[in-house]
Structure formats: C-alpha cells, structure tokens
C-alpha cells in the first residue's frame, strides 16, 4: 500500500515535546544521558507530550495516528505545522526544516502547503459558509471574486455548493465538518492535518464522511495525517497507522500488519475487537502446499490478496472446503475451513498477548 518510490513530504526525526517549567533541563537530560519519560517526570516534574517520534509520510499517503486521550497525538499533529514548537528533533516538510523557518516563511508554509481541520470545526460564526471556506485565501490576500470562485469549487467537491450563502449554525454537524474540509482544500495544500475531525459526529455520518474523505484525498493526490482515537476509523481511512501511547509511537504499520502482528499486549488488546473480515488476506492465512493432504490441482483458485470475506464464500462453495492460492500459474498455498476459522479468531494475536 505504501508507495515507496514517491517523494517524502513529512520527515520527523526523533521529535520530542516536553511540557513544564523545567523543560530545558529535562531536554538537556534527554539529550546528554538519554533520560526517559519516567525520569523526566520524576526528576524535573515535566510531562513528555511526544517522546522520540520518528516517521515519514510520502506523497499521496494517508497516515493515521491512533491513540487514546492524553497519548500525545494532538500535540504531535500540531508539531507538524509548528503550532507547537518541538523541544528536540527535526521536522522537515518537503525537505525544509521547519524549526529554522522565520515567521514569514512559516506563515507561507501554513498558507500554501499544510491545511488543517479541527475537531470542533472552528467555523467563524458570523460568516457565510462560502466566506468560511474562503478564509485561508482571504488571509493570503486573494481577491474577493477569485477566492469565492475557488471556495465554491471546494464546496462543490464536498457536496455543499447549495449551502454557500447559509450561516454555519444552519448546518448539521456533518455538514459543518465538510465546510472545514473544503476550507482546508481551498488553499490547495499538499498536506492536510486532520485533528479528530469526525469524533463528535453520529456513527452513520462518521462512516460516510470517512469514506468521502478517503476518496477525496486520494482523488486530489493529497497526503493526510489523520488523528483519531478510534481504531476502526484508523483502519478504514489509513494507508498506514501509527499507534501512540504515553507520547510514544509503539507501532507503525498497515492495518493488516497491526492486526496480525501487534507489537505488544496494549496493541493486541486494541485489535482484539477489530473485525478481520476485510483486513486479513489469503497470503497471511494459507497453509504450505505440503500441509494439504488432498489433491491441490482440483481446488478452485484465488489470489493472495483475497480477504477473509471472499475466502469464506469460496470455501463454502467448494466441495473440498478448501481453496488454492495462486499467483498467476504458480500455486502458493491452500486455505481450508480450519485455517479460516483460526484466521478470524486471530490465534496468533491472542497467543502473543498472553
């Protein structure tokens, strides 16, 4: 799923954020003697918001950061456009170190390259939907006619062109968040930061917006950093997912990697409740050909990318209750009813957690 060949837009290296009155001493201790979170809290009474985060986000990628409240995910996303200054480490956007930018360059970066959508939507109450969507352009000094034209275009993309002249309070929560998204894309940034945008919405609307968001981001070729406390949402939207706990990124990987190989008991507990039907693929379930007693040649075939849902249908339809996995003409393995049951139960994950 990751496009390894494409350009790296965001590059975070060993980024720390320490909050507290003695933050400077704490940073020195981290830098010189490698002090950890606990030591920092004990010795300096400072709270570590983000600890040693390193990751890269490529062009066109949707990167989800999942964590519970207090895990540091909202701090982390604000480090990316320097709404919060990092204490230590380096953050580069398109190869430019943002810590070294002066105010003017930073404003230009925020105006042109990084859009942001907030949990509370943050629409301006007294302005129409159109003027809200045009806010970023207005700040940049784009003329009225031009910015209205672009904003109307952005509103059309989120299906709200009929609402341009209404006030935010006349819109439902889901529609308001669409305006927030339109405002972010109106400036045509390469990167969109989404800070728990759908958390306050009804489940049905939320799923609808998740799908729309993914589709829109992909069709526009944008990269996105999407913050959420909901693992289902992260799996639905993200190309890759980072799981945060106590300021640390404890695992980064695709949904399938995280479900099948949770890094520790904490992640395992999280993924235990996740439906595996669409996440687990044949290539991670299949038995070696040698473990299958019957004649493999007779079995129906499918690709290694088939998910559990598709495999169940095939296995149920086959008299042998098994299906062969093949890449082109080469047979790779076999999925039986038994392996499917194990796959759904997530034996591997459960064992690892215990």
């Amino acid at each position: 799923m990751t496009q390894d060949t494409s350009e790296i837009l965001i590059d975070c290296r060993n980024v720390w954020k320490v909050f507290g009155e003695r933050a400077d001493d704490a940073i020195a201790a981290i830098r010189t003697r490698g002090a950890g979170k606990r030591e920092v809290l004990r010795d300096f009474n400072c709270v570590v918001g983000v600890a040693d985060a390193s990751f890269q986000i490529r062009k066109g990628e949707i990167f989800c950061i999942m964590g519970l409240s207090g895990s540091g995910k909202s701090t982390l996303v604000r480090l990316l456009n320097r709404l919060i200054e990092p204490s230590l480490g380096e953050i580069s956007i398109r190869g430019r170190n943002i810590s070294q930018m002066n105010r003017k360059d930073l404003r230009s970066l925020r105006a042109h390259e990084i859009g942001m959508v907030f949990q509370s939507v943050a629409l301006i109450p007294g302005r129409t939907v159109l003027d809200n969507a045009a806010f970023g352009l207005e700040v940049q000094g784009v003329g009225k006619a031009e910015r209205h034209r672009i904003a109307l275009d952005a509103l059309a993309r989120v299906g709200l062109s009929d609402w341009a002249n209404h006030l935010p309070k006349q819109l439902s929560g889901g529609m308001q968040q669409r305006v927030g998204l339109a405002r972010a894309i109106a400036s045509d940034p390469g990167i969109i930061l989404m800070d728990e945008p759908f958390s306050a919405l009804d489940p049905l609307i939320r799923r609808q917006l998740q799908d729309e968001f993914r589709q829109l981001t992909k069709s526009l070729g944008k990269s996105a950093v999407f913050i959420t406390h909901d693992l289902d949402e992260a799996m639905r939207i993200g190309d890759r997912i980072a799981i945060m706990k106590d300021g640390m990124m404890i695992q980064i990987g695709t949904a399938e990697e995280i479900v099948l190989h949770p890094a520790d008991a904490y992640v395992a507990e999280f993924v235990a409740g996740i439906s595996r039907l669409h996440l687990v693929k044949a290539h991670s379930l299949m038995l070696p050909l040698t473990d299958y007693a019957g004649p493999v040649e007779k079995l129906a075939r499918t690709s290694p990318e088939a998910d559990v849902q598709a495999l169940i249908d095939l296995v149920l339809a086959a008299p042998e209750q098994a299906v062969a996995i093949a890449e082109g003409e080469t047979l790779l393995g076999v999925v039986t009813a038994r392996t499917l049951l194990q796959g759904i139960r997530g034996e591997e994950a459960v064992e690892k957690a215990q």
Partner: protein
Amino acid sequence: MSDPLFSPGTLIAAGLDWLNTNGHGVFALIGGAAEAVLDGAETALRLPPAWAFIGGVTALALWAFGWRMALLAALSLGLCLASGLWKQGMQTIALVTVSVLASVMLAFPLGLLAARRPRLERALRPVLDIMQTVPPWVYLIPAVMIFSLGKVPALIATVVYGIPPMLRITTLAFKEVPHELVELGQASGATPMQVLTKLEIPAARKTLLVGLNQTILLSLAMVVLAGLVGGGGLGAEVTRGLTRMEMGLGLRAGLSIVAVAIFLDRMSRRVLE
C-alpha cells in the same frame, strides 16, 4: 479630633502637591487638550438648532436601523428638549461620548494585553478592584486638585471611572475566544494582526459590547457626580435641584439623564453591530 492611624491621603496629597508643582506643564497640556476636544464636541452637537438635530438623528436612525430606533431617538432627544434642558443634554452627551472613547482607547489595548499575559492580568486585578470599590466621589478629589474646578476634572474622573469595567470585560472577552479559532488563524498562515481583526474581535464582539454598555452607563453615573465640580450639563442641574430642594428640576434632569443613557447605549450598540 486625633490623627488617624492609617492615612494614605496625607501621602497622596503630598504626592499630588509635588505633581502639581513639577508636572504643571504636562497637566496643563492634558487639560488643554481635553478641554479643546470637549468644547469641539459640544460645539458640533449644538451647532444645528434642536429641532433640526432631532429630525436629522431620527431620519438617520430610520434609514440605518429602522423605525424602532428612529422612535427611540425622537423620544429620548425630544424629552431633553421638552424638559428645557437641551443645552445641558448636549453637554452631557459630549462629555460622555468623549470620556467613553478615551476610556475604551485606554482600556481596550490594556485588556487585550492582560488576556494574553496572565501575569499582567494578576497584577491588574487588585488595582481594578480598588478602582471599582472606591466611591466614585473620591475620584473627583485628586482630579480637582490637579485640574481645579470645571469640565476637565469631570472628564478625567469619568475616564478613569470608565476604565475598569471596559478593561475587565475586554480581558474576559478575549479569553473566551475559542482556542481553536486562534489556532485556525495560525494554521491558515494569518499574521497576528489578521488573527486579531478577522477572528478574535468578531468572536469577542458580543462580550465587548457588554463592556461598552457598562462603560457608557457608569460614565453617565459619573457625569452626574461631576456636576458637583462644575462639570456642567445635566449633572449640574441635578445638583442644583438637590441643593435648592427643587423637585421639578431634579426630576426633569434625572429623566433626561435616563433618556440620554438609553439613547447612547442603544445607538452605540446598533452602530457597532
């Protein structure tokens, strides 16, 4: 009578004496400027004849804000005229307008700064508490000591009296602005000035208007007291009514003050909205 144990007044009086001797030039300048502005405002208000003024304001209110405001303007200004206190009414409107503008000009930036810097807010709080609890009469004493009797000490005392409510409410208004709105501005690449004018002030507007309303009403209350020191206007008439025990005059002047208060408050609100 024995000397009291606690007497800050003796210190302050000495300080004021020192200021009077050494700062005379500065105070003369402030006094002169205040008097000039005040006289200018008063002259402008009294330039047209009363009926023309009322008609003009009413027509303007009708055109800009609709018939309710027009009716309000006609009734309140008409009451001043009918009470035979037109000149005094205009003097009071001039005094209040100038002093409220000065109060706001001083209190708004300070209040905004206090909203940004918690330390400044903490330092200002006891000062504001004292300013708001000391009986307003007390303001008049140092004002008169420095600027002697007349309109100028009345104006200065009113300005000082109007600062605390505006300052407090300005601080509150800006602290109440949702943080994410400010973050939105920053994340959109807005300059601090753009964040202030495009996001913070509109979001704080309702609360700021409450502050303005409080300042206008308190300034009017002070203007009445200022009648005691020769501030002129409706306040002087109230004082006259009191000292001569003339119920009719006191009542007419009092009702005119109410009319002026309502007129200024509603008008300023609509203009700023």
